[in-house]
């Protein structure tokens, strides 16, 4: 057994860096993951989440810095580290012309399972994925959400000490997403430590005990949810859904007295993107047809500012669909720290 007891540090990452040519994909990252927790890495596209995970999983070698898992160094004890890990890649890393059952049996074998233990764990994983009844169908006939569930199942059969999940819910329907989030909670309850990356702050808020916020290869904030929210202070988010964004309106909003920052993102558009359901019956397809935008305004005095914001939008001819004011969340933390939205 390792020296890290429950509550101790299972993973220690110190001054980790990775350069691809001139591009510093990861640029001096340090964090710890405690045994038994769900640790979140939150960051926009290109922040360096996947690169960080690839180094923890011994897939690529760091340019600088050290990583230990369960006390073993990734650089010198890769075999022992890999035995402790289950990795669910960001891509659906399955064989489309094999059935779910064949895929799971294969990946189980890659993790060293065989015989009746393999049979047992495959059955268990299929049940956890909620796909036991469709196990003998080819993965290519599955919907995006079902593929994601099998993608996860393939990484947990050997009951790893640390489960690493890289954006496991990208581009899937809400039903499958909920299923996956519940699965992660359940696995964590059973004692699995989880490293979860995402650019959906709702997921991270729902799942994670502690969160590292990444941007441009660096961790810009690290702590529990409460600690992070405190960073924003008493700033609230005014979130306005508009049908269109007339030219110059964002600058006009920034000029309003009491407004600290303004961002604009296409919410919802992304959720539909990757989930083009495979042919065949796919009941759980999403239908997100609107191309509305969400303008977020950070302000310490939301009550006073809200009327001005709506008035500016009205004058510019933007059609306002909804307005709401939220308590600080991870989104506003990110906004506060970087001046930009997590998704754009």
């Amino acid at each position, binding site marked *: 057994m390792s020296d890290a007891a429950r509550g101790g540090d299972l993973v220690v990452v110190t001054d980790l860096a990775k350069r691809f040519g001139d591009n510093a994909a990861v640029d001096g990252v340090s964090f710890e993951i405690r045994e038994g927790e769900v640790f979140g890495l939150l960051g926009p596209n290109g922040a360096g989440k996947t690169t960080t995970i690839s180094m923890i999983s011994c897939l690529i070698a760091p340019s600088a810095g050290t990583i230990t898992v369960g006390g073993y160094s990734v650089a010198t004890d890769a*075999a022992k580290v*890999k*035995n402790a890990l289950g990795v669910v890649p960001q891509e659906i*890393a399955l064989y489309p*012309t094999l059935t779910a059952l064949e895929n799971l049996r294969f*990946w189980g*074998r*890659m993790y060293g399972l065989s015989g009746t233990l393999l049979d047992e764990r495959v059955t268990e994983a299929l049940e956890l994925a909620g796909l036991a009844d469709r196990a003998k169908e080819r993965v290519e006939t599955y919907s995006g959400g079902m593929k994601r569930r099998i993608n996860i199942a*393939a990484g947990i059969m050997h009951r790893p000490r640390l489960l690493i999940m890289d954006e496991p819910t990208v581009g899937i329907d809400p039903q499958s997403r909920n299923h996956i989030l519940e699965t992660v909670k359940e696995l964590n309850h059973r004692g699995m430590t989880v490293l979860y990356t995402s650019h959906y702050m709702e997921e991270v808020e729902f799942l994670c005990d502690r969160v590292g916020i990444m941007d441009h290869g660096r961790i810009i904030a690290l702590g529990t949810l409460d600690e992070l929210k405190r960073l924003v202070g008493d700033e609230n988010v005014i979130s306005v859904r508009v049908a269109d964004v007339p030219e110059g309106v964002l600058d006009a909003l920034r000029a309003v007295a009491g407004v600290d920052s303004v961002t604009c993102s296409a919410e919802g558009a992304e959720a539909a993107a990757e989930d083009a359901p495979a042919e065949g019956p796919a009941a759980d397809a999403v239908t997100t047809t609107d191309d509305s935008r969400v303008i977020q305004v950070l302000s310490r005095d939301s009550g006073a500012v809200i009327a001005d914001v709506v008035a500016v939008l009205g004058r510019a001819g933007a059609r306002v669909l909804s307005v709401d004011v939220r308590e600080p969340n991870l989104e506003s933390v990110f906004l506060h720290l970087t001046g930009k939205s997590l998704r754009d």
Partner: protein
Amino acid sequence: MRWFHIGMRDLKITVRDRASLGILLVMPMVLIIILSSALGNLASNLGKTPVAIVNLDKGSVGAQITDGFFTDGQLSELFLASRMHDPEAARALVANGDLAGALVVPADFSRRLNTGRPSVLTLYTDPGRQIAGTVFRSVAESLSTRVSAASIAARTSAYYVTRLRVKDPTFVGRVIGEAVRSATETGALTAVGLKETTAAKGEELSQLSYYSGAMSVMFLMFGSMFGAFSLVRERDNWTLPRMLMTPTPRAEVLGGKMLGVFLIGMCQFAVLVAFTSVLGVKWGDPLATVLVAASTVGAATGLAVFIAAIAKTVRAVSGLAQMLIQFMAAVGGSFVPVSVFPAWMQPLHYASVNGWAIDAILSTMRGGNTLAVLPNVAALLGMAALFFTIGAWRLRWE
């Protein structure tokens, strides 16, 4: 044992992939038939087969055998028979492809049979028309069997007739007729040998045999392209990185991928051998053939790693692989025999997998044994090792 599962998984994926099967199996089958018939008039099998009958027999038995080709409804449906008198002229017509075969009955045929001595019919067949030749031979065989049976029966009856001193000549006829019939039906001994000679030079192989070997080798080499595709795709689809993030060592992952290419190639070869054997191709010594096949597939496996290391994308793999495969097929004799190349080009075939492999297969088809193909096997394994070493050294994993 993980490498074994990786290899079996790749075999399974290929068997389910229609596009791969089309290229690895259907295309060579079609090309073998097209090339060998285009160059060997296999197409004429579809119509009547032109044959010559040369009956030099001064007695009546020769006519009994050969008349069937002109009078029998079934036979004249199959064959377009013409009577000739010069065996050498008939042989020449078969040799240059104008006729599919010729049957020659020697002048003393009846006399020898009637005096109880064995005799020989000569059959010329065109090696380029295996199927027609086979049909012609089996017809000639069954005719000669019947005649020999009849001749034995006749002799036996004649013996009894003499012993019993029967005076009535019609009685003798009836007894003989009876005896001939019963002997024919029961199938008796062979007193008439059938000597078959291919019209071309003895050890020359048919076009069908040649292209069965040449095309099989060329399409075994396509295995390298699919192997490289698979490696590059797995890299892009994250299944290769995913394997590397499991406790499976790199060497085992690469070994498994190579086992897959190897298994696919050996299965492909087995199917092509079975297919061409049905068409009548004789591959020769099984051990030698398996050795040559395994080392050829080994070279294709090494080449797969090489191509995947040099070409980074599926498109680049396709371009590079096709270039290499076509080049080796051209200089190695997959399209036309190396012997028709100009002299300065001929040594080039030693630079190709195809050259060594086809050379070995042809030698085995001509009756060569395992010992005869060992140098080729060594050369092929050398190429396999060379491709693999460069490939494994340059291969990018992520």
